[in-house]
């Protein structure tokens, strides 16, 4: 009984060294000195677990049974390894034997199993993945090889994804949702089990439908937009969250299509593949950081081993996963609700499982606020080093040597811009100085003498009036600023027939086919330049659209959304009302007048 309290250093140090070397080979415990520290199995294990859990879930050492008796983990590890590892001991119901082997009562098999699972299972799994040939240059085999192929297939995409994610300093969302997956502990937090489920479902859902949603390219395509809102990514996160909360609920798939009523299957598939990709990226990132000092060939191998480990995990735990998810469905018992509720719990650092659903919103907020505190260290490090440094990024700023004696020479002066306003002739006859008040200009007047104030005609009349006034006042500047290419007046250079064609093309190219809109326009109006088309689009077409929206649906306007349904195209009201019945009446008459004045 006494013997197992003292670590058996002498006889085990060689083996411990071996374990350490294996661990270092897959990127762990690189800081542990193999000579000085190697004899301390628990020390190595502690470092390993810390690295694995990113200091978030540290197990206390020494490991103790419920009654406080310490357990020699090394002995336990050796005993279980002898019996073929955790899985085989479990399936052979041999835990009682292990307990006896370690000198305990055979009734203590179950607690021992728990301790093994908590402390040693991950170590075992990781070590299993290290191929016998540690140099790791040629040989991986079996499933690893397959994975190697898989990895190299998707590597460019993954890499670009990786780069982007790095670029975007992913702070909360994806880290939080995914970071549990990127940590290896398959058993304890169970959060990981959701990932295998993803994998399985991925296969189930995407492959039979024959869709290419898994194709990294698709995923990549929707990732590569950097600055715009990343609907797909946000969607993916929401989806992962939804699955985490209600894994058995088929309606989780419906959370996304609210974004866009596209092909649902594709969307779901996209979410799967996005989540999958994101996870991969996180794996790569983590491994990359841990191996910074090792050779690339080793790195490649390590990635494979990790990936295969995970996939095996998926296979092994699939049944468990299904059970777990069912458990969640009737989520009264937190102990059975397994993977998913726990996943969110881990994410949020929130202990109260009962409130998960009610507190969704609150959790989202809290997550954002807490993010940096909860961020695993390795990610924090990344973020701080992110400003690229070097001559291809920074500009050379000369030291300050005092104000230069001469200002710009006359040659430079012409590069100060050409004055358009006030115009030269104002120098000769300066206009009356502006009123000394701080108020300037007039707002719109509330009432006018039109027959139907506020009608389309009335608005157009006042706009034309204003334009005329500006034109007279500005003179040449009016043209310099292209004011004659502003507003609905642009339509004057278009024939009615052409305008009708423009609209027809727009109607034919409604979303989701809007990509061809401009191509077709160019084909259809070969004699109008691009510029003229764009000008018409913004100055006439969108303005008319907006004007229509103002009247039909004033509370929900988004003129920047180029994909809205354009009801006015089908409605006689829209087109007819933006023009006077005689299109050449007031506007043109006033234009002529104005030209006269300007001359």
């Amino acid at each position, binding site marked *: 009984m006494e013997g197992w309290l003292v670590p058996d250093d002498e006889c085990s140090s060689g083996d411990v060294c071996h374990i350490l070397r294996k661990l270092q080979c897959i990127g762990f415990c690189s800081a542990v000195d193999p000579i000085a520290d190697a004899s301390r199995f628990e020390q190595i294990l502690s470092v390993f677990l810390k690295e694995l859990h990113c200091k978030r879930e540290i197990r206390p050492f020494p490991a103790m049974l419920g009654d406080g008796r310490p357990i020699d983990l090394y002995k336990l590890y050796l005993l279980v390894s002898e019996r073929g590892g955790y899985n085989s001991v479990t399936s052979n119901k041999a835990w009682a034997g292990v307990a006896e082997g370690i000198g305990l009562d055979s009734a203590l098999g179950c607690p021992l199993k728990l301790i093994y699972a908590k402390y040693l299972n991950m170590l075992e799994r990781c070590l299993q993945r290290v191929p016998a040939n540690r140099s790791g240059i040629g040989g991986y085999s079996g499933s690893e090889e397959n994975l190697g192929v898989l990895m190299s297939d998707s590597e460019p995409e993954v890499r670009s994804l990786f780069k982007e994610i790095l670029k975007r300093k992913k702070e909360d969302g994806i880290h939080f949702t995914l970071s549990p997956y990127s940590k290896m502990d398959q058993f304890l937090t169970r959060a990981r089990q959701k990932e295998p489920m993803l994998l399985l479902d991925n296969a189930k859902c995407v492959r039979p439908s024959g869709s290419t949603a898994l194709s990294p390219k698709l995923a990549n395509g929707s990732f590569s937009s950097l*600055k715009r809102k990343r609907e797909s990514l946000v969607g993916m996160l929401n989806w992962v969250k939804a699955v985490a909360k209600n894994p058995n609920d088929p309606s989780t798939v419906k959370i996304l299509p609210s974004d866009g009523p596209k092909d649902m299957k594709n969307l779901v598939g996209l979410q799967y593949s996005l989540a999958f990709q994101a996870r991969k990226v996180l794996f790569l990132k983590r491994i990359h950081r841990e191996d910074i000092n090792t050779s690339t060939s080793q790195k490649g191998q390590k990635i494979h081993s990790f990936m295969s480990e995970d996939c095996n995990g998926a296979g092994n735990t699939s049944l468990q996963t299904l059970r777990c998810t069912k458990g969640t469905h009737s989520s009264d018992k937190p102990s059975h609700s397994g993977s998913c509720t726990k996943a969110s719990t881990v994410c949020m650092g929130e202990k109260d499982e009962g409130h998960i659903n009610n507190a969704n919103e609150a959790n989202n907020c809290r997550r954002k606020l807490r993010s940096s505190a909860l961020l695993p260290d390795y990610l924090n490090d990344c973020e701080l080093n992110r400003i690229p440094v070097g001559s*291809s990024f920074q500009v050379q700023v000369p030291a300050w040597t005092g104000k230069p004696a001469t200002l710009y020479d006359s040659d430079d002066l012409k590069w100060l811009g050409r004055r358009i306003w006030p115009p030269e002739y104002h120098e000769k006859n300066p206009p009356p100085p502006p009123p000394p008040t701080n108020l300037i*200009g007039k707002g*719109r007047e509330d009432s006018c003498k039109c027959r139907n104030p506020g009608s389309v005609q009335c608005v157009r009349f006042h706009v034309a009036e204003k334009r005329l006034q500006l034109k007279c006042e500005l003179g040449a500047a009016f043209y310099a600023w292209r004011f004659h290419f502003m507003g609905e007046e642009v339509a004057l250079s278009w024939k009615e027939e052409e305008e009708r064609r423009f609209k027809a093309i727009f109607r034919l190219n409604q979303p989701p086919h809007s990509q061809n809109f401009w191509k077709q326009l160019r084909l259809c109006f070969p004699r109008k330049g691009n510029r003229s088309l764009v000008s018409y689009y913004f100055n006439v077409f969108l303005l008319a659209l907006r004007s229509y929206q103002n009247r039909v649906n004033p509370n929900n306007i988004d003129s920047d959304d180029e994909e809205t349904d354009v009801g006015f195209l089908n409605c006689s009201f829209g087109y007819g009302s933006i023009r006077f019945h005689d299109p050449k009446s007031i506007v043109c008459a006033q234009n002529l007048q104005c030209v006269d004045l300007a001359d």
Partner: protein
Amino acid sequence: MPSKDRVAYFYDGDVGNVYFGPNHPMKPHRLCMTHHLVLSYELHKKMEIYRPHKAYPVELAQFHTADYVEFLHRITPDTQHLFANELAQYNLGEDCPVFENLFEFCQIYAGGTIDAARRLNNQLCDIAINWAGGLHHAKKCEASGFCYINDLVLGILELLKYHARVLYIDIDVHHGDGVEEAFYFTDRVMTVSFHKYGDLFFPGTGDVKEIGEREGKYYAINIPLKDGIDDASFTRLFKTIIAKVVETYIPGVIILQCGADSLAGDRLGCFNLSIEGHAECVKFVKKFNLPLLVTGGGGYTKENVARCWTLETSVLLDTELPKEIPENEYINYFAPDYSLKIQSRNMENLNSKSYLSSIKIQVLENLRCIQHAPGVQMQEVPPDFYIPDFDDDELNPDERVGQHAQDKQIQREDEYYAGDNDNDHNA
């Protein structure tokens, strides 16, 4: 009060019809709308309006690498399929598409900012405005976030010829990463950026811990914010920090990037600022009475951009505008209420008081390091340097300046005068 300023405003009629492509949120047409609204309000009567020169490639290469500038010059939508590698290398593509007249567009907006800086240097004006500029993401050898050429860096380089220290302030909802990166190592430019940070928000940089390196350490300031910040919290934080920054750093000139995507209801942004709150920041910066270069930036809800920048033009002109938008060609865009105001959204401010104050404390802490830093040149003191009355206590009674900090301030003032005398002596 400072006297009336001479304001130079830059606009080129050719930017209005630049088109980034279908469904691209960046619409240069907003510049056309802004200019039109400025004129509808008759603001042109109080300022000079210039058409900028088109910056020459060699000017753009003051910051950017020659090969990148050359590539931008050469590439067209029709030839881009031949240059897949280069496109990837320079990060051109979806966010930064190649469109017709791309290079001319860059030349115009960069030329505007460069001209504005030169006019300020020549003391031909006190305030220069270039709403087309402010594309703060562009990097030395790649495009980023709708930005191809970093006109701000070029403008600052121009200003550095005549000023020992330049202060760059950025109130775009996105982090001003291109500018920060360019001047990360220098103490001659201090960059201060207020932006949304976290949730994968572009560009992902701008943590409060990014403070610059080498000589530039403590000369990059980042104020990371969460969704939904409102006028009250934003302007309070802005005033506290900027007042302290100006007092500490004593810049010779300020360049202010007024990205309008920090407004409520922006298509890409997520703040909850009203136009008044946004303009309040401009007003505050103007009060320092330093030469000021104001640029545009982001802003993806066209009509709000036009509203915002028109109001800010009027602020810079010390003019008040009637709220009702006058008749103009684009009046229909301003429906339904045809007003300069925009409604702030009913959204939660995720920036708790404690979060904001912890950010503020960190920033002020870093600023304090500057006061003790040796080798910061303080010779150049602007002639009519003016710190507006600004009572920090009043703004935030909870966090008074401690006695320790006050002592430091007194000490610093001594240094300041000593520097001034030295300068006289040398001259």
